[in-house]
């Protein structure tokens, strides 16, 4: 299969996602409109008269029938207009463009840290069963699962900010004295480097490190556990025995032969952990005043603010589709037996 064939298959995969996205648009629209709470009443405030509320409802277009509202929503979406948040008055599109990179940067760094720790840990634990490193792995897995993120987050803030003073105050992506770098990718780390501004790079890295660690500690567990289990299974397989019998070096046997074969379930787990972190790091975002999309969506939901919630769900759906496609492509890279069209 040539590169062109692969491209065609990827495009076909993408087109298969279209019905799913249409379904998601319909369902989120219906769900948000079925939610209890009246956005007009919320927007008008507690002192508003019924007349004012009715007027606001009319201005927001909420007095029209559901199908008409849906058509308006879809029309706007097609133009790239995600609507306006009624609680902040900001355009949702603009909020997403600034907030999604904030969440992504945090999540990706967290995932990078936890993978860099969990995968070697899992491999070591699998190659030395019942050694101290195996017990350490088991301890970390148990601890990581049982500690809620808001607790680890607060504990880290307490120790590294309050007690030791090593970390900056947990107040968002950048200290108030710094100006955010010009937005190119939306990732402060990358944008500041692109702008050649090392000071801002360090400042944003310092802000990132504690929330990223918090998420990393939480996501260590599934990755380490899956790596260990998958390695144990592969290490007892026939072809690893062959590799050992051929006198290949321990490194070749464990990394080139065993780990590459053990990678498929680890990649799947990484994908699951990533999508889970992206949607579920609301608590961490709250603890560190991180301007991400998780906290944005929760605030909007509490305020019966439709547009941000719909856009959040839609964004997540698109990310899931992209992520699954990426995982499928990675599968094909790792394992020649996997075919994209299967």
């Amino acid at each position: 299969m040539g590169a062109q064939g692969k491209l065609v298959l990827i495009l076909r995969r993408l087109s298969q996602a279209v019905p799913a996205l249409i379904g998601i648009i319909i369902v989120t629209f219906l769900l948000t409109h079925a939610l209890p709470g009246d956005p007009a009443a919320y927007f008008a405030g507690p002192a508003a008269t019924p007349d004012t509320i009715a007027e606001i409802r009319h201005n927001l277009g909420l007095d029209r029938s559901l199908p008409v509202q849906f058509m308006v929503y879809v029309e706007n979406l097609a133009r790239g207009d995600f609507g306006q948040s009624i609680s902040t008055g900001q355009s949702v599109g603009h909020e997403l463009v600034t907030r999604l990179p904030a969440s992504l940067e945090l999540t990706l760094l967290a995932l990078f840290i936890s993978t860099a720790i969990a995968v070697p840990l899992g491999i070591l634990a699998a190659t030395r069963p019942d050694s101290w490193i195996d017990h350490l792995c088991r301890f970390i897995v148990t601890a990581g699962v049982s500690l809620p993120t808001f607790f680890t987050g607060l504990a880290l803030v307490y120790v590294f900010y309050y007690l030791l003073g090593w970390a900056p105050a947990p107040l968002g992506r950048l200290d108030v004295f710094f100006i955010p770098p010009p937005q190119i990718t939306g990732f402060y780390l990358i944008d500041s480097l692109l702008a050649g501004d090392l000071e801002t790079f360090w400042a944003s890295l310092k802000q990132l490190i504690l929330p990223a660690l918090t998420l990393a500690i939480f996501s260590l567990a599934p990755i380490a556990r899956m790596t260990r289990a998958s390695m144990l299974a592969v290490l007892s397989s026939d072809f690893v025995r062959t590799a050992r019998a051929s006198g290949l070096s321990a490194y070749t046997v464990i990394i080139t032969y065993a780990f590459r074969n053990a990678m498929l379930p680890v990649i799947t787990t990484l994908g699951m952990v990533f999508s889970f972190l992206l949607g579920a790091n609301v608590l961490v975002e709250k603890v560190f005043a991180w301007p991400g999309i998780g906290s944005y969506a929760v605030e909007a939901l509490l305020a019966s603010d439709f547009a941000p919630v719909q856009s959040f769900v839609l964004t997540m759906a698109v990310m899931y589709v992209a992520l699954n496609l990426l995982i499928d492509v990675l599968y094909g890279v790792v394992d020649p037996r996997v075919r994209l069209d299967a």
Partner: protein
Amino acid sequence: MTAAPALAVEGLSVEFRTRGGIVRALDNVNFSVDKGETIALVGESGSGKSVTAYAIMGILDPAGRISGGSAVLGGLDLLSASPSQLAEVRGREIAMIFQNPRTALNPIRTVGRQIADVLIRHGNVPRREAPAAAVEMLRSVGITDPSRRAKAYPFEMSGGMCQRVMIAIALAAKPSLLIADEPTTGLDVTTQAVIMDLVNDLAKELGMATIFITHDLALAGQRSSRIVVMHAGHVVENAPTDELFAHPRHPYTAELIAATPDSAASLDELASIPGSLPDLRRTDLPPCRYSERCPRKLDICSQPLPHQTLGADHVVACWNPLPDASAAKPMLSVATESAA
């Protein structure tokens, strides 16, 4: 037999720790292979043939422990060698091919690279020339269009082809001893003969000693000059092939021969061996692990197992071996009576 043997195994004992207790998988196993000679290890499933090979290769399961003995190859005792010494010998001096070649190859690495890995590891070939050398190895094991096949993955090949690749991997470093563990299991019958011929031819060409592990006594008879019969982790008889078939001295060997289709005139005469292997976790295992199935058991059989040397080169672990001469006949007639 003045020259040192290619491999001399003495007193090899192996234990496995399991939840059900300690399994004494091998107990005091002795045999040797001369340079260029092909011997066969024969026995039922679970008799310890493969464990013997794994112990020699140093690839026992972590639960397994070598509790005694030595296996001397070229002056080095493999069982007491350091991991680094062993790593030098494995694949270079002593190599192994396995049953089920399809699962014994790395599924996500091209066969050419798997051969090249061994070539590079054992230093015969510089890294840059390894791919071409791997293609040559594929050609030498009779794979047609080797340069194209080198880029194939095991799942794109037939079982017989995979076993040829396996052989190419094993012989890449031109070892002095090859252990072939049921190399034809899982292959269809026509391929089996071809693979066995290939192993024999290459062994002759390289002057390599071969230990051929099989449960098929007839196949062992065709392919080896000496047969070592194993039962429940013991070597019960060790004799030149012709001698063993003509004058089996251990009751178990005689039963095995009677149970082999070639020697019986018809299927009616085919005997099955009564009883099964004893549970090796038992703490009250008798000294002779065959005694509980044995029709010739005597009181003396509860004494420690003897290793009687009968004739020049014929060892039997039995207190009451069958008499010499046409020893197999009474056993065959017994089998006939029971079948009738």
